[in-house]
């Protein structure tokens, strides 16, 4: 899906857990998520820590959208 959207010129950051799969299917901007059942959260964490985790990953994804890339690139996040 992301590829077809990107093909039309709209940059896409794919946030997923299995980064290798995202690379295989041709994503160009990627941020790794926490897990499959809760990509952007963690029920084990306190609400504050979970919020920090989610905003940190989303911020990394937003920054990726504003960053030029030449090839498939994984953007790290703080939390």
């Amino acid at each position: 899906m992301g590829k077809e959207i990107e093909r039309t010129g709209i940059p896409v950051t794919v946030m997923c857990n299995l980064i290798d799969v995202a690379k295989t299917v041709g994503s160009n901007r990627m941020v790794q998520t926490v897990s499959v059942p809760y990509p952007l959260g963690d029920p084990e964490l306190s609400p504050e820590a979970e919020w920090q985790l989610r905003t940190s990953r989303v911020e990394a994804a937003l920054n990726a959208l504003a960053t030029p890339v030449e090839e498939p690139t994984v953007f790290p996040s703080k939390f």
Partner: protein
Amino acid sequence: MKAIHYINQFFAGIGGEEMADQTPVFHDKLIGCSMMLNAMCKPDIEVTNTIVCGDNYITNHTEEALKEIFAFLDTKEFGIFFAGPAFMAGRYGVGCGIICKAVSERYHVPVITSMNEENPGVEEYKAAAYIFKGGRKATFMKQDVTPMAAFAKKIAKGEKLLPAAQEGYFPRGIRMEIPQPDGIMAADRVIDMLLKKINGEPFQTELIIPSMEKIPPAAPVKDLSKATIALVSSSGVVPVDNPDRIQSASAQKWGKYNIADRDNLPEGVYKTIHAGFDPAAMCAVPDRGIPLDAMRYFEKQGKIGKVYDWFYVTVGTGTTQAFAAKFGKEIAKELHDAGVDAVILTST
């Protein structure tokens, strides 16, 4: 079981390029390679009719051609439809693809054809029809008709159909579960594979991902603080009543839901219908799947201009690449029309 066979002007012996505009002709007596096909299909299947149509006519006047052919087929009883073989003839291949797809959709019967791998009809129609791997030119006629007939006979007799690679047609992008092939359990197979890998021997994955065309990275957003950003997801997070009835696995559609008045996706209002993982954590906090709350936070901070008023979602488990590509194209069009600058796509 009865079958009907579609061929082009050349293989009907009407003529070549000069007759490619020929409108459909319907024969109650078999002509051309239909006779060979019928001989090979006996006694399980009887090929009753040959339909002939010019390659230009079906490819350039598809709607009219299909209308005429449907008017004929509506009066016939048949359980299988054949077209070709088309070898490497491009327009013939596309013509076979067009008619096979249309017949399959209208009459819900198996549709069988044959093409060379270089025929452009393969890429376009391999998901819609059984396209057997054929030779490059008409000297392969007998060789190419043989597997078409053999496969049709298996269908007619209700025999077990094997995966594409074993039957000899181009993979259709359909995944089937085969419990314990050859009676060997998954743990044994995966260790066999690992040992082969360690020993540098060739091995075959059971989850084949077709080789991928690379898309050059899109240019970055110039100014995030002025950008409209859309959320797209394969997490299956939908309004709690799943109004579009999106499938929980092997999805064949997507939905879009308005979030203009929402700061987050509350529990009980949204949930995930994804059947590929334990949904409890995501149902409790749907923003764990589609992080609207975090996006709103960055919108309020002024880091981004705007969160687009709709999110787009489907279910990613078991969904074929053909459907995923279709969804992507459809969603991309909407995003362009709405002036969306960039996308965050969350998947599981």
